[in-house]
């Protein structure tokens, strides 16, 4: 199943002084095993633009969806057998310690 992994910051990162995992190694390994389909780092929230249409009128405004201290800074699209495999992939991502990762499967619209 496909999981969108949102990579987010956190105000309380891990304090363990051991070295963080290498992100390039993480990408290379999961790409080669077919578990990471794509992914990228996003520009800062100051570059975000909001789009809405209300009563037929296009409303465009500056800024992210919500003003929060914890923000999405990137994403990876994973293809894993189940949640446990996705958790294993996520635990080795450096941002699991520096921030937090949200695993959200694609909705099953066939059910």
């Amino acid at each position, binding site marked *: 199943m496909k*999981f969108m992994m949102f990579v987010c910051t956190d105000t309380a990162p891990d304090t363990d002084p051991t070295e963080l995992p290498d992100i390039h190694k993480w990408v290379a390994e999961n790409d080669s095993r077919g578990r990471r389909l794509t992914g990228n780092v996003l520009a800062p929230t100051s570059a975000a633009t909001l789009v809405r249409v209300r009563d037929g009128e296009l409303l465009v405004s500056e800024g992210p969806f919500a003003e929060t201290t914890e923000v999405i800074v990137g994403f990876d699209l994973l293809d894993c057998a189940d*949640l*446990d495999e996705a958790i*294993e992939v996520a635990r080795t991502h450096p941002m699991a310690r520096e921030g937090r990762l949200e695993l959200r*499967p694609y909705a099953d619209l066939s059910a």
Partner: protein
Amino acid sequence: MTGTDTTTGAPESVGVAAAAQAVAAVGVDAYPRIVATLIRLTGDWALAEDCAQEALAVALERWPDDGVPANPGGWLLTVARNRAIDVLRRAAVERRKLHELAVLAPDDAWPETPTGEAVVDDRLRLIFTCCHPALAIEARVALTLRTVCGVPTADIARLLLVSESTMTRRLTRARTRIAQAGIPYRVPSGPALAERLPGVLAVLYLLFTRGYVVDGEPAFADEAVRLARLLDRLMPEQSEIAALLALLLFQHSRRDARRDAAGNLLTLDRQDRARWDRAAIAEGQAALARVRDDGPYAWQARIAACHAIAPSADDTDWPAIARAYDALVDIRPSPVIALNRAVAHGYAYGPSAGLGLLDAAQAGGGLDGNPLAVAVRADLVARQGDRPRAAALFREAAEMAGSAGERRALLDRAADLAG
């Protein structure tokens, strides 16, 4: 009590009461096994539970006239499976699921011996899936009670202090979440098992303690013990499981002696030890004898064993209990364990030793506002001989007490000292 074990010839008519008894006896074990098997085959939790429930209802209808079948579990599984095929066929869903259900021969899937690999795997899978950390802890407890133990939703709602409709919604949400979030129906292997097992054991222990917190409801503690026994049988090489089983059995052995006639909780020294369940204690000792590690449940079980086998409160092996608390506070430091450690040292080495450790335990602030900590101090001070100060401390503890019964017991202690 005609034959749940009819093995030859045509079963005879057994009457409604006997049939109901047979259904109840078989159902306790059969329900979760049917649910586990049907979930594996269909991946549909609600369908599996509905069909298991329906099979029990059909048995209640048919067994009084037809007699109890030779293999009641296999009979129930066949009925449940046919019902599932029916529902899936009508919904015209996946051909693969239907095929798997149709080719499953009930006698293969329901061995008379409890060691049948498929069934064992199914039930373990069910436990680990219900206790997956990606589910909220309340959902884990509720789902385990409902799906693994077969406890009716209304009873779970009562235990967890919510309405039945709320509990129904929560259970539905949990089952949906398992499918949507991608929680696997699987026992983890290797290091993942070591990571996941403590969570499963924590759910069992929570279930057990909830059973006692809510007006001493022993039925849920019974379920927790039953589940720990099952888990121990399924994974006998896991030492922590045996330790938890032993701990639950020792605590559960006191269920009939824990309260006085008015329903107030009795401390260990005031319980009638003749009412402790000797069989449960013996079973606990046998389980504890298999414990090889020094995990938190192992030490708690050893402490409970010291109490369970002591002929009287005065003849308790307090030095052994004190040593066990020393070890426990190292691996799982907590204010409550530090408090219990002070009590144990107080009995083993005298009140001054206990007070020294109590001062240290209270210095952290984790026991502020805890009436038990004040009561422990009162008890230690009383044993040092300062009765007026002990009485004052018991009254102070009574002020902080959470329940009327607890308050009364503490005021009684104060009155005894003053009088």
